[in-house]
């Protein structure tokens, strides 16, 4: 653990990145590129979700292939009340956090009895159930999804429909979530979670109920992801069961691994690179050959394979090695 030396490339890079994210609205305004502000907002929201997944996956070794369900639940906790004209943002956030925490508690209590591939598959199964549940709710659009015609309302005077205001709400949320997890990882709780990943028997011998600790970690993760979902609902103004499909959960895992698991800044790097790749690859390919952009999944898949096979520790690990050189 490096705590003293702040002048490593990784720290410089991370700080520069946070600064850049802090001034993105100003840059986007100067260059009149509202579109990039929109992408940056998306990055912030997904990073919050990725951080919450990173805690249980990276530090706790629990590979959840169902985390997209929490994002979806959080988003529906905005969409459904607004559909019934309950516009209070506080209500939405309260619902998003409690409902996803509850879903995490119930599914986690069952899933955590299993390990390894069984855990991967059972978390996916629960997410599929949530997917089909929302798919069958005709009242709320079913498969067609639900358009959220206006945003959550907080204080009078704060209009989160304004992209810059909303961006800073997401930015502050991200900083708070990063701080929360920073404290959590360093706490005794965090040490038990990490210890249970590397040697569960030992932690049990020390008298810790690893099951309970894991369950709490899983519930926190679900709740934070649900919060990200509430932001996502306000961001896209549209929600559909599509958001909860298993491939979305897979993408979220990829973001975490791409950035580097079990690191503080990994999720930021991961989400950023993922979305930039997703945005740039089709454009770059179209420049090489018009129409080639439709096949951007091919290089994307190859990059994914390359990262898994050769880039140990993701981008974060790469920057660490850069520092040691």
């Amino acid at each position: 653990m490096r705590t003293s030396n702040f002048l490593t490339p990784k720290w410089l890079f991370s700080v520069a990145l946070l600064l850049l994210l802090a001034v993105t609205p100003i840059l986007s305004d100067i260059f009149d590129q509202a579109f990039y502000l929109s992408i940056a907002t998306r990055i912030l929201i997904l990073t919050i979700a990725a951080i919450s997944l990173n805690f249980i996956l990276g530090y706790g070794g629990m590979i959840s292939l169902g985390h997209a369900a929490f994002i979806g639940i959080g988003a529906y906790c905005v969409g459904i009340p607004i559909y019934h004209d309950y516009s209070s943002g506080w209500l939405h956030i309260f619902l998003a956090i409690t409902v996803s925490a509850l879903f995490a508690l119930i599914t986690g209590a069952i899933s955590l009895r299993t390990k390894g591939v069984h855990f991967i598959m059972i978390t996916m199964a629960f997410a599929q159930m949530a997917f089909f549940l929302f798919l069958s709710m005709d009242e709320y659009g079913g498969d067609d999804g639900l358009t959220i015609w206006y945003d959550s309302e907080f204080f009078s005077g704060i209009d989160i429909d304004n992209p810059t205001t909303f961006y800073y709400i997401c930015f502050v949320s991200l900083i708070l979530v990063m701080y929360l997890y920073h404290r959590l990882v360093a706490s005794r709780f965090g040490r038990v979670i990490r210890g249970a990943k590397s040697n569960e028997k030992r932690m049990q011998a020390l008298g810790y109920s690893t099951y309970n600790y894991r369950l709490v970690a899983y519930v926190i993760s679900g709740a934070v992801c649900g919060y990200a979902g509430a932001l996502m609902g306000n961001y896209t103004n549209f929600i559909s069961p599509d958001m909860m499909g298993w491939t979305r959960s897979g993408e979220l895992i990829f973001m975490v691994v791409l950035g580097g698991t079990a690191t503080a800044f990994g999720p930021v790097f991961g989400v950023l690179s993922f979305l930039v790749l997703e945005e740039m690859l089709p454009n770059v390919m179209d420049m090489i050959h018009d129409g080639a952009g439709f096949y951007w999944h091919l290089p994307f898949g190859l990059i994914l394979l390359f990262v898994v096979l050769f880039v140990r520790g993701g981008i974060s690990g790469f920057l660490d090695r850069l520092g040691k050189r």
Partner: protein
Amino acid sequence: MKKALKAAVYGLFLTATPWLGTASAADSAPVKIGFVTTLTTPAAVIGNDMKNGFDLALEHIGGEMGGRKVDVFVEDDGFKPETGKQAADKLVTQEKVDFVTGFIWSHVLLASVKSVLDSDTFLISANAGPTQLAGKGCNKDFFSISWANDQIPMAMGEALNQEGIKSVYIMAPNYASGKDMMAAVEMTYKGEIKGRDMTKWGADTQLDFSAELSKAKASGADALWAFYPGKAGGAFVSQFMQAGLADTMKLYTVYTLDGISLPKMQEAGLTAALGSRGTQNWSPDMDNAANQKFVSDFLAKHGTYPSFYAQQAYDAVMLIKSAVDAVGGDLSDKDAVRAALVKADFASTRGKFKFGNNHFPIQDFYLREVVADSEGRWTTKIVSKIFTDHQDPHAVDCKM
């Protein structure tokens, strides 16, 4: 998309050097049209056909409207509402287009509509016609060149009455449009409904209909009515044949047999499609000058009959051109452009065409049958007219 990147680079230069601004060059700058359709996933076959119709229209008008060149920005919705919404966002915030058109799917359109209308851009749907936007949710800047989703199945129910069908079994996918279709047929059909099935749709679409077809067979209904767009259509007809239903039940479909699916079915020898009937507001054999030019040029260029997706994209371009022409290319006065759009002063491939108060068309609906043309190619032919000057039932809820 290449253009998108270029525009981004120019954008940087333009903002850095504001004195090069384009105020004086406004009328020579191109008219920008955003076109959202499905170009990936199996549904791309529909998107490509639609784009062929769109491109043919641009070709016919010489790539020009109201004395200005037309710049087209094509975006893929990936058959996903979320992706479609992102594409629409990009079109209005980054490219700052004047018109957004395209849209095959209702759910993609519903997801995108807020982004487009919030930015005061005209939105002209070239296929999707969600009923929400026809009634209370109608908007001054939204136009549908197609229909309200339930009109075609309403015509279907009425057609079944006229055909003297005593009982019917209904099958549709279990998603919002599927349910709307079912409700609409049931609204106008007066005979007995022997049973109905809704099959899994979406991420893991059910393409094996054996269980449902056995039930349909056991029900003893006179006819089977089905709604299976895209790849599901071929699978459905082939199993309809395998289950031996072709001899015992009449087949009626909506949005299932068209210029896209018929050549494939012909190739695979799915003869059950021949002679089956469905309702539509257009058919390639319609006898008017605009349609004949469109269909013959499309046939010459692509070797297949156009589908209604291509036809409506073609009409959408012609509608936009009529409005841009009417204001002499000056798009700064939105009210004037809107008024010109409402007039719909263009030669539609459907013959007569006019908008109702909710900016959805008031038009005729026909029963058409699948037949082989003089060269043996499968296509559709109009059998009879079901509705004349039909307006969707939601228009009364629209306060416009």
